[in-house]
């Protein structure tokens, strides 16, 4: 039997509430009431109302809410979904949110040093997948290879990952999938909180995060703050060789990769009988250095004494501030639910590097190489209603406007404004209790307006007379898209089957449409194409699951076809001494699968195996026959978990040994490098103590136990042959009250 936890139990008239703990138990004395309502906070588990005809006080001996949470989540959608909660993040806590989630098959973190990473689902990252927070699409500078995800992982209560097309609900960009972050935990006490201390040996990281919250009648609040500081990270090598440049490392540290994060958030919520509203205000601020000896593709020497301290952040570095204001409200009138979401986001990113002349560009006046300042306004509404017994419908409307302004002496993308609108309907029909079919359709319109950009310095034209070259022309484009999805869920005995087929799309980014100039970061000349069409993708997914009391086997294969995948094609041509890269479109096929096997050998001992495989091939165009860039190689994870239930690990403690094997990636596309396979050993150890109403949680993780030197094919520093971090011991100590 699996225990449900975090079920919210409250009395309809008084808003007295209690949360069930992980063992499934809860206690709260209710008296003088006639109706006791059980409302699981997870909407997919069952809700029920226990009614007592008698007006006398009742005492329930025991209320057992039965349900298989995993199964219910899986039956909720025809797509492959993975849901994890806060304790999963804490147990797998790593330098950044995506790194903490990397054990989930199909999910990858494209790392930028030790404290930042970009998400990728089944090899699709950048603008081909989206991250949402409380239903609102997170808008940073997703297109950039060295731009991380600006999220405080301590503030996330629940994560649901959809692998597969998500355009139906989220519109443009949700091709590879959606990572949905929620901070939906509702405090149950008048005052409660937790504090987490985090330490990491490899980059001498130190972090502290605290949350306090409380609930007073129908109102609740939460305040959270995080501070994290880390030094240059260590790699298991004394020197780095890049294009036969030898770069010596002092104390095996990757110079100037230190950084720090400062995040804070505030939530105010109202939870009424038929109306609830949730307001989140948060600010993420982080700053981290780039490896000093090679920035982008260029090897550099500098007068800066980088080895003076391993904790300081010298040039080149980047800083980003992400401010967010999100309101989610919902009304329930009878069986009809109406949701409204509004949000404002500001993302300000700055990149600094030593001003140096290059080609015809004289020495710039300051270190601000690039700045992006992006405001995003989002509004969406959704109506959910049961039509008949077996049919439920939902429909929605969303609108988003963004304005991105650039600054600094380095040009990569022009200023732009985009406005997008979408409308969708989605229905689910229960043919029987075991068979559900679902289908939906959506129409979108995306308008892009790019502003012209000219160099701030002069370059001789064909006749030799100096001109301020135009690097992006004024451009207005509009993209229409019609997307759809259809799926089924089937459950029979121990088997569960899901199938989904869907179309998704994305509008080309302003960089793809309008760039025409040197990308000094990667040292190449990138030329956009303003005739690019919206990228479309068709994907078929399946989820097959077999489960008995000790064994669970899951297989999730997919097949994906792009009639017009947008890629940056390196050509043999030169312009201003740099290789020309053209944005172009090609037909692409991708397929692969993930597996997940869990065997509960005994009460104490369990074995887990996860694996993923992906194949991609371009079917047309200049790079026909090649793969796609940043394709992750196959990998498999074997782990053994031991939960003694007593002794030094306590009742809840566990120890997990993990063996990860990753294949070589030899299917590459210019200008990538082949990457060798590797094997890693990781260890994790945790236990908790209950002290009265408080609890202490301790988690120790050892990553790369054998201090192996290896390369991550999708890492940012792979470009310049920098290996991944060496052995690391991290400790997380949590105290909740």
């Amino acid at each position, binding site marked *: 039997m699996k225990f449900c936890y975090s079920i919210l139990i409250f009395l309809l008239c008084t808003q007295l509430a209690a949360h069930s703990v992980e063992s499934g138990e809860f206690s709260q004395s209710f008296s003088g009431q006639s109706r006791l309502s059980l409302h699981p906070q997870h909407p997919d588990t069952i809700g029920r109302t226990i009614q007592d005809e008698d007006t006398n006080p009742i005492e329930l001996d025991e209320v057992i809410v039965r349900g298989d949470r995993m199964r219910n989540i899986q039956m909720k959608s025809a797509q492959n979904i993975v849901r994890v909660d806060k304790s999963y993040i804490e147990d797998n806590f790593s330098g950044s949110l995506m790194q903490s989630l990397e054990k989930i098959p199909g999910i990858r973190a494209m790392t930028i040093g030790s404290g930042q990473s970009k998400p990728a689902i089944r090899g699709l990252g950048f603008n081909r997948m989206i991250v949402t927070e409380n239903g609102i699409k997170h808008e940073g500078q997703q297109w950039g290879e060295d731009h991380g995800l600006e999220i405080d992982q301590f503030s996330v209560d629940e994560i649901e990952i959809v692998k597969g097309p998500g355009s139906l609900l989220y519109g443009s960009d949700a091709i590879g999938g959606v990572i949905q972050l929620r901070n939906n935990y509702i405090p149950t006490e008048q005052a409660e909180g937790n504090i987490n201390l985090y330490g990491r040996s490899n980059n001498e990281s130190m972090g502290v995060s605290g949350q306090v919250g409380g609930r007073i009648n129908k109102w609740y609040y939460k305040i959270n703050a995080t501070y994290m500081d880390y030094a240059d990270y260590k790699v298991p090598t004394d020197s780095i060789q890049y294009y036969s*440049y030898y770069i010596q490392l002092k104390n095996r540290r990757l110079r100037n990769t230190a950084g720090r994060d400062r995040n804070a958030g505030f939530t105010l919520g109202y939870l009424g009988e038929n109306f609830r509203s949730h307001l989140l205000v948060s600010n993420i601020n982080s700053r981290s250095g780039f490896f000093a000896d090679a920035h982008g593709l260029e090897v550099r*020497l500098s007068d800066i004494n980088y080895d003076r301290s391993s904790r300081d952040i010298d040039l080149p570095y980047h800083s980003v501030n992400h401010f967010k204001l999100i309101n989610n409200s919902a009304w329930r009138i009878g069986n009809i639910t109406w949701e409204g979401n509004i949000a404002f986001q500001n993302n300000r990113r700055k990149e600094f590097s030593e001003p140096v002349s290059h*080609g015809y560009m004289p020495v710039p006046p300051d270190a601000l190489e690039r700045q992006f300042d992006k405001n995003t306004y989002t509004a969406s509404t959704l109506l959910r209603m049961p039509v008949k017994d077996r049919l439920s419908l939902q429909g929605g409307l969303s609108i988003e406007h963004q304005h991105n302004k650039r600054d600094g002496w380095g040009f990569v993308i022009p200023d732009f404004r985009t406005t997008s609108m979408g409308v969708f309907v989605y229905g689910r029909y229960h043919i029987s209790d075991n068979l559900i079919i679902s289908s939906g359709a959506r129409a979108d319109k995306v308008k892009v307006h790019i502003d012209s950009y000219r160099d701030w310095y002069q370059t001789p034209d064909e006749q030799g007379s100096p001109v301020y070259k135009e690097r992006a022309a004024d451009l207005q484009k509009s993209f229409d898209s019609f997307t759809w999805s259809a799926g089924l869920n089937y459950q029979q005995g121990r088997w569960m089957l899901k199938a989904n087929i869907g179309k998704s799309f994305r509008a080309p980014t302003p960089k793809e449409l309008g760039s025409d100039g040197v990308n000094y970061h990667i040292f190449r000349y990138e030329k956009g194409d303003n005739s690019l069409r919206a990228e479309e993708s068709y994907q078929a997914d*399946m989820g097959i699951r077999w489960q008995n009391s000790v064994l669970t086997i899951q297989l999730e294969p997919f097949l994906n076809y792009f009639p017009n995948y947008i890629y940056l094609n390196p050509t043999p041509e030169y312009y201003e001494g740099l*290789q020309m890269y053209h944005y172009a479109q090609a037909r692409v096929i991708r397929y692969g699968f993930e597996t997940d096997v869990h065997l509960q050998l005994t009460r104490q001992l369990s074995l887990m195996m996860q694996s993923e*495989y992906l194949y991609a091939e371009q079917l047309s165009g200049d790079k026909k026959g090649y793969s796609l860039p940043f394709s992750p190689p196959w990998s498999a994870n074997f782990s053994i978990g031991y939960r003694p239930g007593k002794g030094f690990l306590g009742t809840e403690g566990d120890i997990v040994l993990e063996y990860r094997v990753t294949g070589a990636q030899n299917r590459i596309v210019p200008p990538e490098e082949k990457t060798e396979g590797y094997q890693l050993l990781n260890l994790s150890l945790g236990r908790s103590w209950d002290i009265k109403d408080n609890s202490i949680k301790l988690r120790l993780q050892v990553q790369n136990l054998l201090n192996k030197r290896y390369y991550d094919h999708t890492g940012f520093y792979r470009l310049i042959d920098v290996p991944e971090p060496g052995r690391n011991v991290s400790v997380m100590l949590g105290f909740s009250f």
Partner: protein
Amino acid sequence: MIRKALFCLTALLLLLSCGQEDDHDMEKPEIDMSGVSAFPLTCDVVYRGDSFTFKALLTDNRELGNYNIEIHNNFDHHSHSTDDVDCEPDEKKTPVNPFIYNESFRIPDGMVSYQAESSIHVPDDVDTGDYHFMIRLTDKSGWQQLKAVGIKVRDRN
């Protein structure tokens, strides 16, 4: 039924995954400067007011693309050459009228080996000192090879 479908699917995936052999170009072109006439090599000196000839053997497994030569100053010692031996740099200095050279050259179609020869004139009014001589070479598939040579611009007398 499901069992059967599962089996078929696995078989199909396995079949697809170990399918065709890659027949597309996976090799970068090469810049060979080991020949006796190759020029310039690390620490070679070129004279202002004079012309010199760049000479190298360019090769590729399939078909060569184009090459580019770029010369920029290294008065700030911003990086070093790709050769194992570095030559002793002059004193750091601020550029006044540095020599800037940036030309691309076409290689005739269909070549797998090409003897590159380009004459480069050094104007007589440019700053003397440390320079970087950068050779970039592409092949038809878009692979690029790079070579950086540290050279010096001096006066003939």
